[in-house]
């Protein structure tokens, strides 16, 4: 199993450009998440999804959009990139059942620079 994969690994954007960060998991997890990590800081939740067709905002959603059309994929869209969006982006997935929440598995991250 590949686990959680993210593309691209690195990207440089100009201010005002748009892009989509791809995330795919092959573990049949129902929950998926997007986090950003600024230098020397912990991760902050951008958006999450509890299943296909269901998404919700996290702590820092402004400037981002998501969709979840399938269980496997959870792309993150950046519209009108700004320097404040320079960060490392992590996608994660987990399984949740009525008996509890299981640990999140993280992708390798995407380093994004906006100049």
């Amino acid at each position: 199993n590949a686990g959680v994969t993210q593309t691209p690994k690195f990207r440089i954007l100009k201010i005002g450009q748009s892009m989509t960060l791809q995330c795919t998991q092959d573990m049949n997890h129902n929950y998926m998440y997007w986090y950003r990590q600024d230098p020397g800081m912990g991760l902050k939740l951008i958006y999450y999804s509890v299943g296909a067709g269901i998404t919700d905002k996290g702590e820092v959603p402004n400037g981002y959009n998501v969709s979840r059309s399938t269980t496997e994929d959870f792309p993150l869209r950046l519209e009108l990139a700004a320097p404040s969006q320079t960060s490392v982006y992590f996608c994660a997935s987990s399984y949740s059942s009525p008996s509890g929440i299981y640990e999140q598995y993280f992708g390798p991250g995407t380093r994004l620079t906006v100049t």
Partner: protein
Amino acid sequence: AQTVTQSQPEMSVQEAETVTLSCTYDTSESDYYLFWYKQPPSRQMILVIRQEAYKQQNATENRFSVNFQKAAKSFSLKISDSQLGDAAMYFCAYSSNTGKLIFGQGTTLQVKP
């Protein structure tokens, strides 16, 4: 709102010795989960250990163990017999039943040979 605080930005330990990383959290919920994640220079987030709040017994994974004090809202990580490969940033994280993780600021652990 829930918060997670790691008050030690940096720690160092001699190889083969024991080190404890501190974490406190704030929540009004009674049912939740606590985690320690390791992030080496490769940036990969690696789960170290997991604790369910309803379990009184402290979680243990090989050389890693926690001291979970629910009343004090404290969740420290003890690393025994430290190895050079343990050098990394360590993050404490909290999750309610929604599954959303709230991370602390992280502690950089240096292991000296």
